[in-house]
């Protein structure tokens, strides 16, 4: 199998995730797009691990999965807190730091 197939699939998923992060209004949907980005990185890690005949790719992918779980837990808690304080999770309305 060609290495490039997996890398291009990862790049495509990554760009869709970037689009989702930039274009979505709903906080939960932004977190879903972040998951797309993390998964594309994992595909790259595993593909390079298989390409170089090493388990390091798999180990790093496992670490990324663990960190993604932590990220979603804290991220959803923050979104929940924003919802509780403002009755909306529209991320474009959170502009307190705008000058």
């Amino acid at each position: 199998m060609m290495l490039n197939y997996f890398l291009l699939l990862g790049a495509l998923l990554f760009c869709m995730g970037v689009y989702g992060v930039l274009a979505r209004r709903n906080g939960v949907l932004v977190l879903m797009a972040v998951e797309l980005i993390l998964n594309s990185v994992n595909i790259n890690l595993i593909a390079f691990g298989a390409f170089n005949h090493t388990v390091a790719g798999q180990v790093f992918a496992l670490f990324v999965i663990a960190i993604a779980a932590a990220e979603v837990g804290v991220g959803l808690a923050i979104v929940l807190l924003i919802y509780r304080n403002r009755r909306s999770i529209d991320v474009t309305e959170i502009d307190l730091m705008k000058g």
Partner: protein
Amino acid sequence: MQAQNISFFVIAAAMVFAAFRVVTSTNVVRAALYLVVVLAGVAAQYILLAAEFTAVVQVLIYIGAIIVLFLFGIMLTRAPIGRSSDLDNDQRWLAVLVSLLLFGVLAWTLNDAFSGAKIRFTGGPQTTAQVGDSIFSTYLLPFEVVSVLLLAALVGAIVLARRD
């Protein structure tokens, strides 16, 4: 080899379609369910790359835990369950432009650097035992750090989300 290529393209097409629906769907719950398709496709790609332990972990953690967390998040924030037209903000076309440019650059670079590189599966699959050996010898310190990080994230999420 041929069967692997065919299954790669079938799974990749399903994943790309589902990922497109995740970022464009007008229904929050449907976006979460399309995300399940993407994550299952990623697990299938791991199996194609002979990384079966990571594939199982992917199914357990992503589809088993993270999607459930997302569905709870959708429920608790009372997101509109049906269709809603205001899920995208007004930077939409700028975002399309940015992601297309990014994909162009990435595809060009990858094509330049890795065209013709083949993955050869020689010497049997990398077994779960090898992955475990590697985690508990070479990567022991990062492993412990990740477990402390998970604990910190757990405590942090509880502190953030509880009512007081």
